[in-house]
């Protein structure tokens, strides 16, 4: 499997495309800035959201049980899934019970995480994603490259080609208005003919047993209201204690995500309408394990706004697919090693630790500090190559011994060989697009010895 560096190198072969990708996402970061700077209490909101989530993480089991009891009282069927496999089987069993072989699904990163679409397809069930961006990547047979903007890596001309092939639009048609209308017509038919609709969950309220789904397209509502069976899937960290807390999170979510004050639709689902079945699947899939990692538990505060991706200078120039995991970007890089350290050992290193992610995070996750901490864990667990480890040991020895350093480092000779190219196996990657610094005639310490008496 190619790592983030290799996949980014590939992405960077087309520099004009990198510029376009960077500018597209930077535009969203700027929209976010305008939206948050328009409300003076923004930092207070972030702090409050973060503290509410602290409470949730410290009392997660109690809130989950409270939520379950209230949901059951509302007539909703509640399922518990320990992992992705159980989650997928629960969904399949509901489909089978209703003899349904087709499903309409609105955006749910959890089902991406569980690879539900593949699983259902293997079991003869057709899934149509109704979020426009998700539908586009589904037609392209690609995973989403961004959790909020799944097809942000695609240009409108490429979407036009896909629609021409799959939806019969005119060849070369790339007008977003026309393409969107074609998708609407195509999806309308889907909404009207699917008995089962699956949605994600943005927030689940323990106090009432209701859950809230946020979309801009209304596609979750269309699917859920027209279906006989509504299945809502959620990670267990989506719980919030009380309904009033939505007044904090709904303000934080979309300002951070897209710079809108609120999503077009923030739909509350509480109980099935008469004749309808409603299911909630509560999924752990590694979340309890992450909760037990003191340094990383805060990552479970994430409300999936994607702002850390939009602001990340690395993400913008490497694309979501370079992270080779469901959730890309900085937040993905601290979540993924929890699921599989070996497969995702490269991700915490795919960062300059610039810290912009932590600053935009609406629930104040210390993302860049966790990236640093994951690096320590991954090295200790043996997930870095031995050449790098040997280089680090040699460097540590030199720095710990002043006499060795002084001899080794005279006029930059040791550095020219060892810094900053010291840990790479490739032939001096620094030099590919950068000149090496020119070693001066004398080091500072040599100058100091000549020009100052003391010390």
């Amino acid at each position, binding site marked *: 499997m190619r790592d983030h560096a290799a996949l980014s190198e590939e992405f960077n072969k087309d520099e004009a495309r990198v510029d376009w990708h960077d500018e597209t996402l930077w535009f969203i970061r700027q929209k976010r800035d305008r939206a948050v700077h328009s409300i003076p209490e923004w930092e207070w909101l972030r702090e409050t959201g973060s503290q509410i989530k602290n409470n949730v993480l410290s009392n997660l089991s109690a809130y989950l049980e409270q939520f379950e009891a209230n949901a059951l009282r509302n007539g909703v069927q509640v399922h518990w899934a320990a992992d992705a496999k159980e989650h997928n089987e629960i969904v399949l069993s509901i489909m089978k019970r209703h003899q349904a072989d087709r499903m309409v699904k609105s955006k749910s990163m959890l089902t991406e995480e569980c690879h539900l679409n593949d699983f259902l397809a293997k079991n003869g069930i057709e899934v149509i994603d109704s979020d426009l961006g998700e539908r586009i990547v589904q037609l392209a047979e690609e995973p989403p490259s961004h959790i909020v903007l799944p097809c942000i890596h695609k240009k409108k001309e490429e979407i036009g080609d896909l629609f021409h092939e799959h939806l019969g639009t005119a060849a070369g048609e790339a007008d977003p208005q026309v393409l969107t209308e074609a998708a609407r017509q195509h999806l309308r038919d889907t909404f009207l003919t699917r008995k089962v609709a699956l949605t994600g969950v943005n927030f689940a309220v323990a106090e009432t047993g209701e859950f809230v789904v946020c979309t801009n397209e209304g596609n979750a509502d269309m699917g859920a209201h027209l279906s006989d069976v509504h299945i809502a899937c959620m990670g267990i960290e989506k719980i919030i204690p009380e309904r009033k807390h939505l007044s904090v999170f709904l303000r934080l979510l979309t300002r951070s995500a897209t710079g809108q004050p609120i999503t077009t639709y923030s739909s509350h689902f509480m109980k099935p309408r008469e004749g309808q079945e409603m299911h909630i699947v509560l999924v752990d899939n590694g979340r309890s394990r992450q909760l037990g990692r003191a340094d990383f538990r805060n990552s479970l505060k994430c409300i999936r706004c994607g702002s850390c991706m939009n602001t990340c200078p690395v993400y913008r120039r490497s694309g979501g697919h370079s992270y080779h995991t469901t959730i890309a970007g900085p937040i993905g890089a601290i979540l993924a090693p929890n699921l599989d350290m070996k497969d995702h050992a490269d991700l915490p290193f795919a960062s*300059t*630790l610039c810290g912009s992610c932590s600053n935009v995070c609406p629930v104040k996750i210390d993302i860049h500090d966790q990236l640093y901490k994951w690096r*320590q864990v991954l090295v200790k667990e043996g997930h870095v190559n031995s050449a790098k480890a040997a280089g680090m040991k040699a460097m540590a020895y030199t720095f710990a011994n002043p006499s060795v350093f002084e001899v080794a480092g005279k006029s930059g000779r040791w550095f020219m060989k060892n810094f*900053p190219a010291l840990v790479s196996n490739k032939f001096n990657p620094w030099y590919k697009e950068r000149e090496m610094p020119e070693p*001066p005639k004398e*080091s500072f310490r040599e100058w100091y010895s000549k020009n100052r008496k003391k010390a």
Partner: protein
Amino acid sequence: MTVGLFIPCYVDQFYPNAGIATLQLLEKLGVDVVYPKKQTCCGQPMANSGFSHLTGGCDELFTEIFADFEYVVVPSGSCALHIKDHLHSKKQPGESKALRAKVYELVEFLTDVLKVENLEANFPYKVGLHQSCHGLRGLHLSQMTELVAPPFSKPGKLLSMVSGLELVELDRQDECCGFGGTFCVAEEAVSAKMGKDRVADHIKHGAEYITGADLSCLMHMEGILRRQKSNVKVVHIAEILNGI
């Protein structure tokens, strides 16, 4: 006031002029400066690569050398932040803990401790200020664009005291340059692209010099500027403030 001067390893080796400027500037401002010659490195290159368990030698050495000083001044935000966040000594735990709080990056030492209000320096050029991330988001040398909070800039304030100097506005005033320690070689493609983009922003706005408080970022951008055969130069903020 006696200050211990820590000149980061790569500054010592490649950019002695920044070290000399730091020393001369502090002396001009009436500070008694001592440079202990046993010093090497803060340990950050290992720690940021995941090898913080190998930084014990650096930590012990740093503590041994600098524990007795009233202040330690470092002309690098990144190294200063590493020491402030991570320095720990097994032999002298109390001393190393106290030392963390005594370590200052040069700019913040000038504005917060010495409370410099004017400087005798002249630099008649258009200058772009690179806000290095560790100095910015770690040490809060300036306000961060992500936050809803009142603006300020400690390096900007100092540069405004230099006669003839014109600070240029940037499109992205605090975007990372892509150096990132070993990131610059491990993730060469993205690192170089980030550097090229950062440099282009400065050039677009007419900068003749790019300055900042961290030579690691400047070294990275200098490497790109020289490859592009650009006339734009990098210069450490100490050299401007010292009046080169």
